[in-house]
């Protein structure tokens, strides 16, 4: 075992595997493991990946092409150039240790080996079984059994053997499924869903065999009853497993049959064509609205009723006041101008103190003050109020102090009217 201990072995440029390839390899590997794990463990070399199977196949092919004198190990390694030499040597040893390859002459220093045909046939058989889920082999087995029990020279012993074989096959199938359905996760069940495929025709074929056996040899009723029980158990196991798968898949398209990661990888790495192919058989309606005559009539009649002229938004009841307010503003100018003229009395300027004194009490004075301020601030009026420092204080008067200031005709540059 020269290559023993080498962990990672680089393969020469493997093609990018697609999802289908991976699934196929996983299926092959699973069956291969199931069948050969015992042998392989004894030989000290477990099958760890599907590459190993491919290498076995290459080695056997090399022997097939080698002709009469066989191959030495070095020649076989050279023939299998596409794989790394150490791993080919290891597989060569493994194959030799369980008899698939043997020395041409059984002597210690014999270099040439020959390959048996049976392992390659087994390999082909396994590949096919993995691709088709073993169902076709089972169908063939059932057909053969039926031919056996139907043939003219078949004896009751043949019938017993046939019924027992079938009973065993279906018990194994049914047990595996029942255990999976009862105890395993839905993912595991999905991975083994091939056990579920095409089961109805299998059961039907087995029933045919059963009928023939029971018809020809009625004394075999015990064996036949066992076969019937095995078939019924298988059917129950299928129902249970299918029920679990359906419950898990829900209304989706049974996406649970593959692990989530597989779907993600597929979605990420597929070409747009592959993804679009999902919709190949779907037809989408044109976005064409359907207009029924009733809809037309209703729309036309509704259009007549609704006046689409602009309606002013609803107002509160005192909306009438608004125009008067406008008039007030217009009048205000004249009013203020009159007040200003009255206060000024032809003079150009009057003292605020005099104006306030003239108003009498504070109630009137403050109104005058407000008016004067308004006149000062009005943009259309050419009067101004100029405050100065200084306060006149008269303790007895109603406004006991009054700021010094003058109300006068404005000397605004230009004025508003020019």
């Amino acid at each position: 075992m020269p290559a023993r201990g080498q962990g990672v072995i680089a393969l020469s440029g493997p093609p990018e595997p697609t999802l289908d390839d991976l699934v196929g390899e996983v299926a092959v590997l699973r069956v291969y493991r199931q069948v050969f794990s015992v042998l392989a463990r004894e030989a000290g070399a477990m099958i760890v990946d599907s590459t190993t199977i491919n290498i076995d196949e290459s080695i056997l092919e090399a022997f097939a092409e080698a002709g009469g004198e066989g191959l030495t190990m070095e020649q076989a390694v050279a023939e299998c150039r596409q794989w790394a030499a150490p791993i080919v040597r290891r597989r060569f040893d493994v194959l030799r240790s369980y008899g698939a390859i043997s020395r041409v002459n059984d002597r210690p220093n014999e270099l040439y080996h020959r390959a048996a045909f049976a392992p390659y046939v087994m390999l082909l058989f396994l590949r096919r079984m993995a691709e088709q889920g073993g169902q076709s082999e089972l169908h063939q087995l059932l057909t053969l059994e039926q031919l056996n029990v139907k043939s003219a020279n078949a004896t009751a012993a043949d019938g017993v053997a046939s019924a027992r074989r079938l009973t065993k096959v279906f018990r194994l199938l049914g047990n595996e499924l029942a255990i999976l359905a009862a105890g395993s996760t839905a993912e595991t069940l999905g991975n083994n869903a091939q056990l579920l495929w095409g089961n109805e025709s299998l059961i039907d074929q087995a029933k045919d065999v059963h009928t023939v056996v029971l018809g020809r040899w009625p004394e075999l009723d015990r064996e036949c009853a066992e076969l019937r029980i095995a078939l019924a158990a298988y059917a129950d196991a299928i129902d249970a497993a299918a029920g679990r798968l359906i419950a898990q898949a829900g209304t989706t398209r049974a996406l649970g049959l593959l692990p989530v990661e597989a779907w993600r990888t597929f979605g990420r790495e597929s070409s747009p064509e592959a993804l679009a192919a999902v919709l190949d058989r779907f037809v989408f309606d044109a976005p064409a609205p359907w207009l029924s005559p009733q809809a037309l009539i209703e729309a036309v009649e509704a259009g007549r009723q609704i006046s689409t002229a602009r309606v002013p938004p609803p107002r509160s009841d005192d909306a009438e006041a608004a125009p008067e307010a406008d008039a007030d503003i217009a009048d205000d100018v004249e009013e203020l101008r009159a007040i200003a003229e009255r206060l000024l009395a032809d003079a150009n300027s009057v003292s605020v103190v005099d104006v306030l004194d003239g108003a009498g009490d504070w109630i009137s004075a403050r109104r005058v003050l407000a008016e004067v301020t308004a006149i000062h601030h009005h943009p259309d009026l050419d009067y101004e109020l100029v405050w100065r420092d200084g306060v006149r204080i008269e303790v007895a008067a109603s406004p006991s102090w009054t700021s010094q200031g003058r109300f006068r005709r404005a000397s605004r540059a230009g004025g508003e009217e020019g």
Partner: protein
Amino acid sequence: MNESETALWWARIRAAGPQRVAPSSASPAGMLRLVEPDVTAVWLLTVVPEGARPSVLEELGLPVLAVEQPNDTARVLAVCMRCCWAEPTGPMWPGIPASRQQVAAVFEEITDRDEAASNRALVAAIRRLAGAGWLLWDEPGQTVRLGPRVATWGSADLSALRELWRMLPSSADIGHGDPETPR
């Protein structure tokens, strides 16, 4: 024409609406052939039984395909039907072309809207309907014709539409300055 070609035509029409083909082309099974008035082309339209039309959706209370501005769209189609269906005793297809002014006049008449808003709604609805095959809109020539899809209206629909035709004013009446047309 074999089965798969027929199926392809059905799918095409279902997916993309009525199809315009050369008049010499073979006709798939179950198709209505609507010949253009000048016989330069033929429209292919699927004929489905009364119980399989889109109107069934309404009867079943299922949502129909939403159309923008459904009322204006329906009004414009009604107006175009009034203008283009020259002889309401006969079939609707092919009808006669109508200028946009004629259509706009009738549309304004039935909607009482100011001209700009009415114009906007009219053009939008005509384009929408032309896209769905209800109208044929010659945008450079500013003329409208009824589209092939009007042939999907059944005979019961047509009698209801004749009523509507009589309700609507014609563009000639409006042109004479008589807004209150006979109803």
